[in-house]
């Protein structure tokens, strides 16, 4: 079996890579260790409306609701609102991630990519130290799959990168450990995506409530792993729900766990190998959001593979086109938001309350973390000292 590219993982990053590589004429195989694409869901299921501009999702079946905006609640309950009406109606969707992932995979398969389910990559295939593909376990069979490029789209716990000698192990302060219930029988009538901050709510993270349609909402938590103890994330979430009159009588249709890298971007390319998505830490360190990055970077990875196949060159230099493109597109933003994350981790609850109070009537014209940072700097020139270098990065 020989392919131009073998892609480990059928999440959004893997499927987008496969789609654009296949479209460019590459012979592509996706390996998925699970028996069904997109299942189980490991996500809060929020995505920016920018996803529409990629035109990679057909129909509307993947959309649960369109967000009316977002509300951020500081520890004492002061509310900052990002409303759709001021943001040109450009907000986001709450999605069904299983359907979302399956639609993205279907798009890749329609372009000619192949997929093998229940197939776990177990190691890189190497010859004279050079990456030649992967070894995989497919039911009882051990397969040697040869490929010119191996793509690690294998998520937060990426092992493909480790096998290639890229340091992907996360420090606990660079990981949010998450639990989420999909709840029903609730009295939560907010059309907004709500975020709750505070040391006693979610240390180093936040609790979210994302409406998913009539009487259904995702209620989840992320806690910074370095501030957590065994089972703490679930305990904090249960405590929050019990204290919310609108939620406490609710029942759950689903419980999931998640792990979200909130780290600096890493090296994503080496000879014959590319990392993409959570595996490349393409996640916003403030929000923990990564879907849009995976989709954008997956496209760059796929197009780069197409070019590499045409040239029949698969060395670091050729594949670096991918890294250059994604780092130019959003690498600087990730770095900036990583620094902001560190500043926020140092803030006391009362500082968050004060900042929220100063923004409670602010009319945000853009649905982004950058618009919040800009507003904070306008209101608090003293923050400029810490944030000015970051604003430069934001403009760069």
């Amino acid at each position, binding site marked *: 079996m020989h392919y131009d590219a073998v892609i480990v993982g059928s999440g959004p990053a893997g499927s987008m890579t496969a789609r654009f590589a296949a479209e460019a004429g590459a012979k592509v195989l996706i390996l998925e260790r699970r028996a069904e694409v997109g299942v189980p869901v490991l996500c809060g299921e929020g995505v920016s409306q920018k996803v529409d501009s990629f035109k990679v999702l057909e129909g509307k079946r993947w959309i649960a609701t369109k967000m009316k905006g977002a509300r951020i609640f500081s520890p004492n309950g002061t509310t900052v609102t990002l409303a759709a009406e001021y943001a040109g109606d450009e907000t986001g969707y709450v999605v069904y991630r299983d359907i979302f992932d399956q639609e993205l995979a279907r798009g890749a398969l329609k372009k000619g990519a192949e997929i093998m389910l229940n197939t776990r990559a177990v190691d890189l295939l190497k010859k004279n130290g050079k990456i030649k593909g992967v070894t995989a376990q497919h039911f009882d069979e051990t397969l040697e799959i040869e490929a010119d490029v191996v793509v690690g789209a294998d998520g*937060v*716990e990426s092992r493909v990168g480790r096998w290639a000698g890229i340091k992907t*192990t996360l420090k606990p302060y660079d990981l949010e*450990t998450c*639990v989420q219930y999909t709840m029903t029988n609730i009295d939560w009538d907010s059309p907004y995506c709500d975020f709750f901050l505070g040391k006693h709510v979610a240390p180093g993270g936040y609790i979210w409530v994302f409406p998913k349609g009539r009487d259904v909402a995702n209620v989840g938590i992320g806690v910074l*792993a370095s501030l957590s103890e065994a089972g703490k994330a679930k305990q904090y979430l249960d405590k929050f729900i019990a204290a919310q009159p609108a939620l406490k009588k609710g029942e759950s249709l689903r419980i999931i*766990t998640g792990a979200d890298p909130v780290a600096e971007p890493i090296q994503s390319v080496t000879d014959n190998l590319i990392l993409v998505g959570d595996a490349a830490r393409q996640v916003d360190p403030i929000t923990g959001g990564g879907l849009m990055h995976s989709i954008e970077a997956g496209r760059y990875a796929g197009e780069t593979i197409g070019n590499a196949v045409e040239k029949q060159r698969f060395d670091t230099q050729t594949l670096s086109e991918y890294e250059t493109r994604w780092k130019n597109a959003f690498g600087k933003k990730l770095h900036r938001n990583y620094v902001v994350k560190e500043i926020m981790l140092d803030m006391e609850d009362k500082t968050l309350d004060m900042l929220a109070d100063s923004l409670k009537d602010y009319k945000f014209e853009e649905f982004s973390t950058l618009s919040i940072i800009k507003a904070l700097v306008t209101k608090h020139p003293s923050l400029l000292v810490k944030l000015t270098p970051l604003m430069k990065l934001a403009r760069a």
Partner: protein
Amino acid sequence: MAKHKAFVKKEKCLACGGCISVCPQDAILMISSKAIVDNELCNSCSICVKTCPIGAIIWEGT
């Protein structure tokens, strides 16, 4: 006395992979949607135990 090793309670694990991403020893694998610790590699650092959001990793022998 031998050190305790991290042990994943299979019936609790929901396969998020957080433990694997933070394991400095690369001692945890995901097989059939359950995390499994390789006792040979585990150095009892406890990072995975603290990281698990639902407390599915315990010390074997305790």
